[in-house]
């Protein structure tokens, strides 16, 4: 091969690479638009006045007369503020209680020695395969029997534990070298103190991840709250939105 051949190959390779890059960006941008468009549409519709919305046979991609009236309506005609408060209470309480339950359990599995540990952990793991739909029926009956329908306790209690998060946290706890535990024991540190002062700070990233995931899960939960509440004083946002829609709420609300 001579030099011109090489130049041709090099040039071709550079051109192909540039074309490939452009293709990639086009592809990524298309999907980004696909993701963003519904959000944009949601925002846009929420600031269009009702009459403007209904008079547009061909929906406009922008509005020249944005209005906040829909937001005012949403908070006055529907107790949207109440739904938000409920959701926040529900989310925070559930997440906090879950942390109190799963951290000690994960610690016991990761660090403490006790009879029947392996058997119990295997049972725990097998629970991970049980879909929540299977147990929701009895839980519904239980909560009803306890008279906890339309209460926060009824909303919160069944969502407090998560086998998966206990598992995740246990794996993370076990990454901490044994030597630290032994050193703490030699220094006379109690198990609880070791958990609070050593393990939790070291595993903070995982704990934060779990917290965020749980908060998202609570924020989006729809099915259980729908079953357990029919009093709109206890509706969460998702139930509220759905109720507005079902009852033919006649005007454009922020979600429409």
């Amino acid at each position, binding site marked *: 091969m001579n030099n011109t051949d090489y130049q041709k190959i090099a040039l071709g390779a550079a051109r192909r690479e540039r074309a490939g890059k452009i293709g990639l960006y086009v592809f990524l941008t298309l999907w980004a638009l696909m993701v963003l468009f519904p959000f944009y549409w949601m925002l846009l519709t929420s600031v269009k006045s009702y009459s403007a919305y209904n008079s547009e046979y061909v929906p406009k991609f922008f509005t020249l007369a944005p209005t906040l009236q829909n937001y005012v309506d949403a908070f006055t005609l529907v107790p949207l503020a109440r739904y938000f408060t409920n959701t926040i209470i529900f989310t925070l309480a559930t997440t906090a209680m879950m942390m109190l339950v799963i951290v000690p359990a994960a610690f016991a599995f990761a660090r403490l020695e006790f009879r029947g540990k392996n058997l119990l952990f295997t049972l725990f793991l097998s629970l991970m395969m049980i879909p929540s739909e299977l147990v929701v029926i009895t839980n519904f009956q239980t909560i009803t029997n306890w008279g906890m329908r339309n209460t926060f306790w009824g909303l919160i209690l069944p969502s407090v534990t998560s086998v998966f998060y206990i598992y995740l946290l246990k794996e993370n706890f076990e990454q901490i070298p044994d030597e630290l535990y032994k050193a703490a024991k030699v220094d006379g540190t109690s198990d609880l103190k070791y958990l609070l002062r050593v393990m939790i700070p070291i595993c903070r990233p995982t704990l934060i991840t779990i917290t965020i995931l749980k908060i998202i899960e609570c924020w989006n939960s729809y099915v259980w709250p729908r079953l357990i509440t029919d009093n709109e004083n206890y509706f969460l946002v998702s139930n509220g*939105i759905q109720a507005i829609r079902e009852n033919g709420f006649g005007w454009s609300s922020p979600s429409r």
Partner: protein
Amino acid sequence: MIRRTSKAWLYLLPALLFLGFFMVYPLFDVFVYSVEEGYNSASQTYFGTGLYNYSYVLHDPYFLQAVKNTFIIVIITVPLSTAFALAISLALSSVKKLKELYQTVFFLPYVTNTLAVGLVFMILFKKTAYTDGMVNLLIQLFGGKSVDFIDGPYWAKMFVMCFYTIWVVMPFKILILTSALASVNQDYYNAARVDATPKWRIFTRITLPMISPMIFYLIITGFIGAFKAYSDEVALFGTDLNAAGMNTIVGYVYDMLYGNSGGYPSYASAAAVLLFAIVLTITCINLLVSGRNVRT
């Protein structure tokens, strides 16, 4: 040892209590319910045991419709969303500029209330007295005939359904696959490049085998998740899914339990047990297949 044992149980006690009440007990209870015939939740009485509940559910056209819908959703959305997420993750991992921006945008649907976005999808696809809706106008623009995707023919509704399901499940898959791709040592790609490996061969012979555990994880959880589809359907078609002909198995369970046609926990239990059996079977098949194919 005794003292240590009792202390360990003390740490476990809250978790055990909650799991016992809301997971283990219901697990057995649902099987009990499912064989109790004519259970009445008000009086908590029943008049016999047997498999009648299963027989009723299996002959209920609503249930059969729900099973059909669920299977269609599963079969269409799981492979499509996984393949598409893989394509996007590959594209993401081969660009540098704006990568984080794209990642953030792609992750958005994960942290939003799917019910709210579902309503937007409905608006975009729905035909009303005032407008044909965005999507239909686009179709007309390209010379097609408009279709009501929300109250129209079955295939149109199913199309929106699958489209929205894929839109919803993409962020998680992209997240998992991007991190799986990032964890493949760059040296393997450099070695392959130096050896003049064509792009497609790098993908099939190096990338895919290296991330195959994660792909199978996504497929298995994708199957399980898709079988439990419900709230996305509600977002698009409202709570009366039976009327829309778009119910799913989980939707059927809830409708039987509570709602317009509710009050039959025994039928609900039977349907739930059937769903569990289906999911368990599919998961086992998946595990068998992946056990043979995932190379480590």
